[in-house]
């Protein structure tokens, strides 16, 4: 039996708790608004000079830098978020001026030191600033951060390395894909891609890595960066690779690279008996390749039992130009295979309304 006094006390306690919580939330918001207002007021005069700096001709920048750089600690703290945000929003001389401002404040050196801070938030913030500044001397320290105990810090370090663009980071980024403390493949792929063509030899070295994920990411990056000289390696990965994920990435990369060497392995990847995802990606890649020789094999799979393979093949035929379109028209009126006819009619209808440009060639799996 529940004691009546206990129920009464609970009923009195709950509204009290609600009141305390409401006061806490309101108080926190008020404090935050007050702080934001104070920061805005503090930063306002220097912010105007900052805008002037961003728009100034080169010969006037030095004088404006002299006016902003000596700002006291409190003012700089209030202004710095705007400076950091602006780094990602402006280019050219304006961006150079912001980097100079950071250098005059001694910020890059401070940020490198903060990469060893006990606070994960500080380490992450420092990595972000160094990335935005594209501070190349910080590459080695940021590579070490790829093994940080905090996941967010590892992600920020990987992104920062991508911004900095030093190919020295490639093996470290690939290594961060496996082990106890990892970085997600999408983040590593984006970072490696932004390193550009200079990084291609080091990325290609990843094709020999025993870890399938490393090989898959290396292949994807080579495809995106247009490393056509690596086509034979990617062809080999598609022919010989035992792991489906690696073969899928190889098929997609061959479509992106658009080299004729890709035709045969992609046609082999399209054949029945191969994994459905690989067949779908191969169909899309054949469309990207634009090889008329793929018309027959693509037309053959229009009636495939798997709608992803068939739909992607239909869209790929559209990308082959008049030969592919003629194949679709023929299939659309054919009576022997109703599934193929339906796929062909759907693709032709999409083309008629101009929607093929909006829909990716690969049917979403």
């Amino acid at each position, binding site marked *: 039996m529940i004691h009546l006094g206990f129920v009464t006390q609970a009923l009195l306690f709950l509204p009290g708790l609600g009141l305390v919580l409401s006061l806490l939330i309101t108080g926190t918001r008020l404090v935050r608004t007050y702080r934001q207002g104070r920061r805005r007021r503090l930063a306002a005069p220097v912010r105007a000079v900052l*805008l002037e700096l961003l*728009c100034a001709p080169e010969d006037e920048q030095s004088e404006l830098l002299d006016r902003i750089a000596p700002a006291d600690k409190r003012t700089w703290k209030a202004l710095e978020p705007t400076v950091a945000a602006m780094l990602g929003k402006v280019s050219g001389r304006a961006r150079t001026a912001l980097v100079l401002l950071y250098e005059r404040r001694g910020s890059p050196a401070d940020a490198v030191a903060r990469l060893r801070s006990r606070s994960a938030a500080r380490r992450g913030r420092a990595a972000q600033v160094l990335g935005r500044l594209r501070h190349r001397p910080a590459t080695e320290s940021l590579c070490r951060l790829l093994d940080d105990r905090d996941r967010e810090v590892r992600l920020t370090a990987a992104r920062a390395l991508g911004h900095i663009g030093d190919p020295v980071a490639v093996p470290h980024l690939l290594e961060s894909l496996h082990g106890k403390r990892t970085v997600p493949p999408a983040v590593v792929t984006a970072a490696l891609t932004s390193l550009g063509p200079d990084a291609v030899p080091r990325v290609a070295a990843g094709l020999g890595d025993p870890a399938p994920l490393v090989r898959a990411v290396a292949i994807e990056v080579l495809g995106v960066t247009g490393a056509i000289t690596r086509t034979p390696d990617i062809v080999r990965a598609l022919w010989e690779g035992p792991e489906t994920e690696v073969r899928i990435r190889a098929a997609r990369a061959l479509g992106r690279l658009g080299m004729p060497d890709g035709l045969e392995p992609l046609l082999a990847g399209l054949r029945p008996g191969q994994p459905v995802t690989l067949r779908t990606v191969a169909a899309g890649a054949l469309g990207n390749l634009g090889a008329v020789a793929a018309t027959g094999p693509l037309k053959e799979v229009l009636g495939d039992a798997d709608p992803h393979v068939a739909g992607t093949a239909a869209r790929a035929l559209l990308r082959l130009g008049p030969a592919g379109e003629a194949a679709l028209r023929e299939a659309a009126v054919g009576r022997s295979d109703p599934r193929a006819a339906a796929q062909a009619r759907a693709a032709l209808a999409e083309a008629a309304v101009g929607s093929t440009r909006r829909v990716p060639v690969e049917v979403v799996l």
Partner: protein
Amino acid sequence: MARVLIADDDPDIRDLVAFKLTQNGHQITAVEDGMAALRAAREQPFDLVLLDIRMPGMSGLDVCRSVRAAPETASLPVILITARSQEGDVELGFAAGADDYIVKPFSPRELSSRVAAMLSRVER
């Protein structure tokens, strides 16, 4: 001197664009969302509109379409501002009736040249 309307929800970009164009001698009206931009475009005469594509509520593309649809603003030159990651939106922007676009990050100098080029094209 031209009358320029700027719509961007990012105060840094809004202030930077306004500052640069004011420096160039233009008269600026800056707003922070699409609805306010459309209202301003209908109520006041402008020579050029700069619209951020992604804004809360009414997007820059929606504003552009509405500007083109109304006879009194149909011929108003529109420049879209877009982030590099949203470059796919540019095609949609031209379909919506935009005349030009600027990709972030941009240099204030480039912005200034684009605006000058657009205004001189309109004058001709």
